[in-house]
């Protein structure tokens, strides 16, 4: 078919690459959530403070987040090499891609968190306040549970974005399916490998999106 021959594929290499992608994705997602969620809550809380100093903190945070989000990911990887080495010891391979993935995705996720928290009805927050809830109680027992569908949708978008980021990190020796596609498909003209790699990534994104949508639906009470 179209002059393609799938019989010569090195399935071993493909499965290693797939596993690498999944590892990068899992690790970077976890750290992105761990970092991005508090950052999002902090953005939300500081933005609505009545204290001018706290709002200054918001402006500073906001600028930093915007900068990190506007730098192209490929440049971020290169720029972060010293930082990556300082943290994980290497700047390549699965391990070396995780810090830039997290630094690239956490601000993005934080913004999505901030946005979904803003969607929470102010009246409900006031009701909690009127019942004597502390700030922490409001965050943990009102804001986050009320925003849960939005947060899950944001997490899904973030993970899907991370799939494409992992593919890019492949270009600088990160490994994984993106790396495979580039190495074989682009440099060695083995279209078959490229097609399979891309196909796997498409399937991965589809599955992630479906799982995310299900979770959102499950937790939506409106």
């Amino acid at each position, binding site marked *: 078919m179209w002059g393609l021959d799938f019989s010569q594929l090195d399935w071993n290499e493909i499965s290693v690459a797939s596993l690498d992608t999944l590892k990068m994705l899992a690790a970077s997602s976890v750290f992105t959530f761990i970092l991005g969620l508090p950052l999002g809550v902090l953005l939300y809380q500081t933005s609505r403070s009545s204290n001018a100093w706290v709002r200054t903190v918001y402006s500073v945070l906001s600028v930093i987040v915007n900068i990190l989000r506007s730098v192209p990911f490929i440049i971020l990887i290169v720029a972060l090499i010293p930082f990556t080495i300082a943290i994980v010891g290497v700047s390549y391979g699965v391990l070396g891609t995780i810090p830039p993935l997290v630094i690239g995705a956490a601000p993005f996720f934080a913004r999505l968190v901030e946005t979904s928290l803003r969607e929470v*009805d102010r*009246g*409900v927050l*006031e*009701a*909690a*306040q*009127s*019942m*004597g*809830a*502390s700030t922490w*109680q409001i965050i943990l*027992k*009102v804001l986050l*549970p*009320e925003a*849960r569908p939005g947060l899950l949708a944001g997490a899904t978008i973030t993970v899907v974005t991370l799939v494409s980021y992992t593919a890019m990190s492949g270009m600088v020796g990160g490994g994984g399916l993106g790396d495979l596609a580039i190495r074989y498909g682009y440099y060695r003209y083995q279209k078959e490998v490229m097609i399979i790699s891309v196909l796997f990534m498409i399937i991965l994104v589809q599955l992630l999106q479906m799982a995310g949508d299900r979770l959102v639906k499950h*937790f939506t*009470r*409106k």
Partner: protein
Amino acid sequence: MIELKQVTKKYGKGLQTTEALSRLDLTVQKGEIFGVIGHSGAGKSTLIRCMNLLERPTSGEVWVDGVDLTKLNKQQLQNQRRKIGMIFQHFNLLSSASVYDNIAFPLRLAHVDKTQIAAKVNELLQLVGLEAHRDKYPAQLSGGQKQRVGIARALASDPQVLLCDEATSALDPQTTDSILKLLLDINRKFHLTIVLITHEMQVIQSICDRVAVIHQGGIVEEGAVTEVFLKPQHPVTREFILGQAGESAQLALQAPHDGSSRLCKLTFLGEKTYDSILSRTARETGVDFAILQGTISKIKDIPYGQLIIRLEGDAGQMEKTIQKVKAEGLDVEVLD
């Protein structure tokens, strides 16, 4: 129970300042249902939100149950707020929590233990008649049911005071009645002090003991509902009451009458409402009367009637009639 002293609330800074409350004094007695009525923008919400410091007054003191809330630190304020329940026009329930969990919410905030929570919540579910809906989510309930959840939630921490911010404004008339009845039951059962704000005279009339009329950030009239309702002094109050009695009173005043007749408004209150004072007196004095407009209704449990009549006959006898009716305990206002 609640005392506001010289409370002023300003919004905004500089030139755009609006003064929502200006040097307002107000006292709510323990155990009463106190109504505040006013037009949109009069400052009602601001007033009630000052009572639990959801809105911090720019100046003045807010005393609730012997404590000046404006002097408390954050922690102390949180503790005091547990003694002040509040319900809202738009219910403000947690959409992600079931009916049960919504009612349990304030108890969990206070770290009450599980078995106690279960006992309390079940008791409240029964009180508000929602046992069958305990596992539903707010989106699956009607407005009236949501407000019942709101009430149960507000009562969970055994508050001394219940603040109601337009609690029935989003409900239809029947549901409004059932919610008001529930509030009245709660007031009697637990001797709970209730403050409610509204723009509907109907609400004040059906359950309040006392009422304050708020206009442009100040109280313009205050007193027992029977007093204020039947003998309104301030134009704004009159407007609210007239708005209710409606056109018919206006029409009555346009009835033909000249020097040989007099227009009077008679007010019957309590048992006298059912008495035949007027016809008895008229028979004695030999004057005739035409009824131009009449109302019979209740203020909370007290029956009252109001008649606009035109007396016809000898001037002296008409005057005598008025005096006699007054002596029988009716309130007479001569309108011409």
